């Protein structure tokens, strides 16, 4: 008899592409960015990498990166614009 254990396998996007939840899209202006790393550190979805590019497949558009950016170089733009 083959016993099936309830074991979950690690995957990127355990709940699918959560980027579809987004209403506002954060856009980084790399020209004014001072690379302080606040957005990378504070993103609850780990959607910002060390080069400060946002992974729009998983960004939920919460806007925390916009709030913590000391140079205000991340802007929120409506998805339908």
């Amino acid at each position, binding site marked *: 008899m083959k016993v099936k254990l*309830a*074991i*979950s*396998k*690690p*995957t*990127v*996007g*355990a*709940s*699918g*592409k*959560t980027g579809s*939840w*987004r209403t506002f899209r954060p856009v980084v202006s790399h020209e004014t960015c001072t*690379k*302080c*790393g*606040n957005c*990378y*550190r*504070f*993103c*609850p*979805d*780990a*959607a910002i990498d*060390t080069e400060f590019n946002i*992974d729009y*497949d*998983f960004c*939920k*558009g*919460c*806007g*925390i990166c*916009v*709030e*913590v950016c000391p140079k205000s170089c991340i802007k929120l733009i409506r998805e339908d614009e």
Partner: protein
Amino acid sequence: MTGNTEKENVSVDYFESGHRACGGCGPALAGKLIARAAGPNTIIVASTGCMEVFSTPYPETAWKTPWIHSLFQNAAAVASGVEASLKRQGRDEKVIVIAGDGATFDIGMLCISGMFERGHDVTYICYDNEAYMNTGIQRSGATPFDASTTTSPAGKLSNGNSRPKKDIPAILAAHGSPYVATTSIATPKDLMDKVKRALSIKGPCYIQVHAPCCTGWGFDGCKTMELGRLALNSGLWVNYEMVNGVVEKVKKVKRIPVDDYLKAQKRFRHLYRPQENKDEIAKIQAIADSNAQKYGIDIPVKK
């Protein structure tokens, strides 16, 4: 808020994107930072709660490290077993418990007490979002004074939760824990340092992470860090380290009135509407003042 990403020397996240937490979730950030600080050689034990539900929808998981969940109340007991087995096999994996405040303050207290009394080499981390958020914002032992929840609703005859927050760090320090700390997601460097320090210390360590919950507390998801900072600056949350029962390091702040913190949240809205309830706000201010006096968080002002 300081330091470069290069200094932290992290390239891989062991808590992946794509979990089903709310946008702007405080506990999700806590999970990410804990996993980042702990690294790959870790076994995570979770209790039931938001963190378990949003990160591991069967048959998938957002954790890249071994992760086990059994019941609401027994995360500490499961971790004790895992640690004892690793010890028997001569393996060096670190064991971390990540549990919510409901599982820590109320339901799991018995098992936690057992684990700390037996002295297992486990780091117990409680992400404190101050109510049972996963099941619909019921009050827990961690709910602060006068917060309105679904089981302590504010109304004509009530001002919300009538009891202050339970002092779990003191209880666990009294068990003889070598390291007890509190931290907040608004201070990520501090959080990661404390996790690393707790993992390097042998014996049962406890860390309590203040994690604002946008859904339960009633504020916009982008304000999570601001709320964390307001709690620290008002004195309603104190970041400190207790080594062998003695408070060593305390984060000092320039204190602000509690009003800014209370006004930002829907769960304290009844204190300001229809008119300002000065008596109750004064009671909350008294809690902040007694915290400030107890831990000495005020920066002395030069006159």
